[in-house]
């Protein structure tokens, strides 16, 4: 934030004064509207619905979406700034919960009719309704093409049977962008349909208890002869996989940024602590072993962040980055694995205590290499592209 660039070719430069202004404004918002309460929300396993409205008012929810649906268009680095500054809440769960629209809405925009977009998107970007995406099932998440929840046409309704699990925002969501089987086996038998919470035959479990991401609710959804109007089907029957793919790059990019920020916050905390904590008569930074550890942490964070930015820039320029964004996610997650571990180590026993941010970062970090496609699935994608 301290250095502003006047030309774009001065060096690899992604953020302008205007991005910096957004950054400052969001930092202020997080400081006043989130940080004072985040501990409470973490323990409560969720945050008040009014936070969606406030986030919408400052433009967090609409960032990057078309103006005609209440969004705020902007280049991809505005979205990068939004994710980075939301992560300054120190709670990946808060970011995932508030951000579940960012996996639920893109399929609607890419496949929906103008009427569907007009119906589902503006209320979500305004913070009046909450959207979630439901793909994963108890029987499997990585193998999306094998999903088993069925939707059978009955007059002007689909009748859905099956269940979804690990669904972010499930207990609070109004609209669920849901993957269902309408055809034969495999990826080409899958459709996407928007299920409205409260539809007949729709129910949600208790919040699942998790290692981290406490401020976001995660739950199971059950469909028991759940009736959904056919006009909620997105695109043509059995074409749902294309809608699922609409998320691939942006979701993985967002998770890369979350991993980088998790690592960055852990490193910043460790630096502050190492400067003041005294052991055997010296501060932790008085020992070369700790200085070098901090240097390694900083180096990894820097390298991973720069790589992620580069991938973001190319996605923003419309260049396919399926391989690179998978690499960025894996690399960023390996960095945050190491950096959060080392940060807790530098804190010693204090790093294991709830009152210290590094403890939460360490727990929140674990999901990042599982959600949005596991490390192994990323490697499968990369290997198909390089071998």
């Amino acid at each position, binding site marked *: 934030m301290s250095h502003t660039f006047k030309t774009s070719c001065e060096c690899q430069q992604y953020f302008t004064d*205007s991005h910096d202004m957004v950054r*400052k*404004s*969001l930092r*202020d918002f997080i400081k006043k509207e989130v940080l004072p309460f985040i501990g409470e929300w973490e323990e409560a396993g969720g945050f008040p619905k009014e936070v969606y409205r406030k986030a919408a*008012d*400052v*433009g967090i929810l*609409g960032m990057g979406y078309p103006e005609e649906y209440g969004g705020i268009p902007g280049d991809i680095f505005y979205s990068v700034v939004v994710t980075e500054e939301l992560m300054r809440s120190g709670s990946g769960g808060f970011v995932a919960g508030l951000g579940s629209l960012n996996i639920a809405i893109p399929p609607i925009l890419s496949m929906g009719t103008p009427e569907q977009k007009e119906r589902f998107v503006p209320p979500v970007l305004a913070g009046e309704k909450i959207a979630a995406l439901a793909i994963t099932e108890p029987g499997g998440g990585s193998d999306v093409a094998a999903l088993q929840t069925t939707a059978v046409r009955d007059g002007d309704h689909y009748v859905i049977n099956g269940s979804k699990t690990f669904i972010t925002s499930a207990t609070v969501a109004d609209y669920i962008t849901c993957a269902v089987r309408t055809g034969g086996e495999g990826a080409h038998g899958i459709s996407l349909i928007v299920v409205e919470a409260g539809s007949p035959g729709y129910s949600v479990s208790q919040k699942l208890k998790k290692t981290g991401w406490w401020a976001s609710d995660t739950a199971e959804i059950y469909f028991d002869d759940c009736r959904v109007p056919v006009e909620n089907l997105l695109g043509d029957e059995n074409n749902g996989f294309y809608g699922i793919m609409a998320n691939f790059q942006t979701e993985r990019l967002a998770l890369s940024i979350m991993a980088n920020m998790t690592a960055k916050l852990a490193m910043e905390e460790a630096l502050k602590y190492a400067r003041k904590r005294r052991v055997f008569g010296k501060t932790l930074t008085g020992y070369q072993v700790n200085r070098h550890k901090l240097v390694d942490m900083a180096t990894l964070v820097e390298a991973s962040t720069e790589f992620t930015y580069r991938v973001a820039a190319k996605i923003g320029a419309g260049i396919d980055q399926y391989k690179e964004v998978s690499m960025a996610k894996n690399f960023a997650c390996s960095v945050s694995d190491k950096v959060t571990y080392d940060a807790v180590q530098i804190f010693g026993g204090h790093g294991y205590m709830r009152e210290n941010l590094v403890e939460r970062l360490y727990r929140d970090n674990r999901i990042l290499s599982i959600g949005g496609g596991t490390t192994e699935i990323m490697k499968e994608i990369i290997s198909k592209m390089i071998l």
Partner: protein
Amino acid sequence: MEILVCVKRVPDTSENEIEVNSDGTDIERDDLVYSVNEWDNYAVEEAIQIKDKVGGSVTVVTVGDEESEEVLRREMAMGADNGILLEDDAFEGSDGKGIAAILKAAVEKGNYDLILTGAQADDGAAQVGGMLAAMLDLPYASLVNFIDVSDDKKLKVGREIEGGNQEMNEIELPCVLSIQTGINEPRYVGIRGIRKVASVEIPTHGASDLGLGADAVGAGAAKVKRLDYFVPELGEGAEMLEGSTEEKVAKLIELLKAKGGIK
């Protein structure tokens, strides 16, 4: 109502540790994060709220350099309609009176009903508002924490006075008011607003545009000069009360009475 709000770019005291530089002539300015002076931000919010109620426009003006544009843009993203940057090498080194003289010239180029300043700046001396009013020969109220538009001729303004007391005044327009924090709850700068003003041209006026000579502004005209910047010697620390809890409480009550904390 046409409203002009004078704003200033200052080091953000919530983001920086402010330190005096080694030769004591200034604060350490490397790597400082700057933002709009907090009081000025309340003034802009108040101006926007008045505009929303009775119509008109809000213009923000600052005396500064190219970097100060960021502050104007921020306030425009919040809802001010126009920004004006007053920039000239000749303005450098102005004292409070010089700044007021520059602002006076800018006020006279426009046609404003109401001119607001912050009550003070983080790095200032709380003098510009009053001087500006005097130079413009306009009525003035300081430390304003309430404004109600009575009609297009008068305002009702509340002022904070010593000891948390409040007074209410009627003031004729046009006038100058210096705004106290807490008068309202300034809104966040929304991303939509930031995007909207990102490429808006902000007009710049220099000394000749404003008809200002070197004798009126800048270091040459400054009659108040800063001699030194320093951190004062630490005084006596806290007083520790000794004895049993009852004794401590009794001593505390005595102290509070003696110092006027309880009556």
